[in-house]
């Protein structure tokens, strides 16, 4: 007589897994994307904060080969492009330099670099004008309160008006920046 016994939870689970079959190619690709995209983003973060030197960026990327390497490269370039904006010229220039290191110098990239410099310069000029105007308003307000002299400099950056005006100026470059980053992604073969 056949012996009937109760299956363990492990046996039941193993039977279910056996019945599920393997992952589809799409699922495997998605899994790899989920695994290696954060690697590329992390390398970009380290490079932008100077934890990775310029010369080491291609070396860092070369640790990942084949399909995985391609995912890391794409995520790295995409993260560098996202860091490009008028708010922080130092970070933007470093991000642009990173893209160049990975893509190699070419004419389209030179054009993109030139355009970024134009955006940064234009934005800095506009924000400086607003800053000076708000500083003057603040100085006049302080003078009315009885505070003046060469030793004082109002902290305009703490002023809500300044933050709003600066954001407004920077938002004015959104479209140009979006086109610029698309161009960069294409130049670097990461689009």
């Amino acid at each position, binding site marked *: 007589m056949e012996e009937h016994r109760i299956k363990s939870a492990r046996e039941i689970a193993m039977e279910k897994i056996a019945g599920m079959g393997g992952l589809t190619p799409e699922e495997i690709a998605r899994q790899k994307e989920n695994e290696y995209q954060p690697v590329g983003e992390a390398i970009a973060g380290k490079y932008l904060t100077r934890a990775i030197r310029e010369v080491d960026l291609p070396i860092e990327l070369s640790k990942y080969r084949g399909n995985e390497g391609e995912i890391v490269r794409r995520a790295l370039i995409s993260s560098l492009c996202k860091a490009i904006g008028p708010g922080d010229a130092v970070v933007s220039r470093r991000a642009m330099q990173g893209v160049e290191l990975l893509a190699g110098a070419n004419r389209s990239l030179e054009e993109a670099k030139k355009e970024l410099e134009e955006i940064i310069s234009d934005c800095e000029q506009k924000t400086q004008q607003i800053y000076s105007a708000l500083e003057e308003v603040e100085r006049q307000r*302080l*003078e*009315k*309160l*009885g*505070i*003046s*002299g*060469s*030793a*004082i*400099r*109002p*902290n305009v950056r*703490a002023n809500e008006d300044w933050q709003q005006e600066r954001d407004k100026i920077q938002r004015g470059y959104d479209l140009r920046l979006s086109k610029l980053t698309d161009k960069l992604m294409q130049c670097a073969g990461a689009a």
Partner: protein
Amino acid sequence: MRLVDNLYAYVWQGSDNNCNTYVFARALSEGKHVVIDPGHVATPFYRELGLDTLLKGMEGDGIAEDAIGLVIITHAHHDHCEAAGTIREKNNALLALHQAEEATYQMLGGKIDIYLEEGELVLSGDNQIKLEVYHSPGHSPGHVTLYWPAQKVLIAGDVIFYRSTGRVDLPGGSAKALKQSIQRLSQLDVEYLLCGHPYGHPGIIEGRKAVQENFEFVKRNILF
């Protein structure tokens, strides 16, 4: 305690560490006051109520808390600036310090309205008070001292004390910079040297001779 003209001194008399506070009464428009280094809200070990004590002292001198218009911090150490944020929020007062202290002050949660730099600070209230602001690093990177030439008053913060100096072992401290700061301040014509702490002495040194002797003592025995 009224010291000279409309400058008042509040020497810390508790057991725990806290700073001395100096107040220019009615030094701004609409009779508002300027408070320099309000100190602790409550001291760190014995929880002595520094700010309450200060405000009671000021009230006794007819200086209302709600008329504080400006708080100047000589440097962003907790024992000088903890109460500054409370005063700022409660009385809508402005807060001033050197930009080199900004990072430290922001770590303590503070907000800055005015950066102080080397130059002239004019307070226009009942009378006009012209102060000279000196960047005096060493105890901290953005330490400032205030000199009032008309009354020969030097508000020295933690640069120099009675027969002693500010410590230089805290972040941003520099013995070399402190030595230069003290050397520079010792060239001023000072009748009242107002120190940031009552260490072994109230911290108010009066008389040109006594002030010079103190500078000489420090230079001879501590700095050189």
